[in-house]
């Protein structure tokens, strides 16, 4: 895996900064990069949901009719599918966030060693990758359970 940008990347941008395009580019840095932007995208999505949820629940203060009409907006197929996304996003964000806390405290990074060809970084090891896969797997399981609750009897 080549972590050094090639010359083409430097000639394309004068300052060396790629902005949001570089931030979203998952192609050069493997699963750690995918995890990086999934953490941020799910975080942004959850913040938007949180603000919407605070606004949605404020309809309680306007009485039963306001609450019921707000519920009608959310108790639909689209509303339930959106909630499924929220369940998956929150599960991934949580599990991957716990992995990042361990990583920042130095757990699971491996021992530093002499940089020999082909220059595999000790920190990008199977523990980190399996943490990402566990986060994705648990998000899928949570969405499955959420789907059973939302679309099952009484949902």
């Amino acid at each position, binding site marked *: 895996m080549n972590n050094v940008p090639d010359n083409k990347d430097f000639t394309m941008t004068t300052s060396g900064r790629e902005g949001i395009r570089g931030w979203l580019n998952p192609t050069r840095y493997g699963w750690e990069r995918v995890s990086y932007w999934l953490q941020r995208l799910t975080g942004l999505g959850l913040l938007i949901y949180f603000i919407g949820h605070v606004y949605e629940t404020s309809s309680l203060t306007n009485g039963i009719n306001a609450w019921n009409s707000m519920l009608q907006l959310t108790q639909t197929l689209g509303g339930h599918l959106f909630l499924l996304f929220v369940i998956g996003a929150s599960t991934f964000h949580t599990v991957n966030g716990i992995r990042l*806390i361990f990583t920042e405290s130095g757990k699971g990074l491996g021992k530093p060693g002499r940089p020999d060809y082909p220059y595999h970084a000790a920190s990008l090891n199977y523990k980190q990758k399996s943490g990402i896969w566990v986060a994705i797997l648990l998000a899928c399981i949570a969405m499955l359970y959420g789907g059973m609750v939302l679309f099952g009897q009484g949902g």
Partner: protein
Amino acid sequence: MGVNFNMASLRLRESQIMKIHYLTGIVSLFAVAIHILFRLIMPFGQSLLYQNVISNYHNIFYALLLESILVLISIHGFNGLRIILIELKQSSRWESTITILVLISMIGIIAYGTRTIVIASGL
């Protein structure tokens, strides 16, 4: 101790802010888990009935739980947004502007959510 205080502002080091970020994330995980359990102790649709939700708010412990979720997630979420925006561009003016805007938004959301909790508790 670890907080650098001067007359003009109270500044936290980025490492201290990250500790707050992680702590609010972990604590809100448990708080949100209890919040979700309240929706799952009965059929989901039934748990959202007006009278049922209002009775939840009348429980002082649940109201306090909601308030803590509101504060914890506001701090965690808006600090996360600040981190993302500061990663995209770096200058002291940009960072100050983002920090102030994020703080205002955070206080606004906490105030609006607290208003709902206080009014719904008294309904």
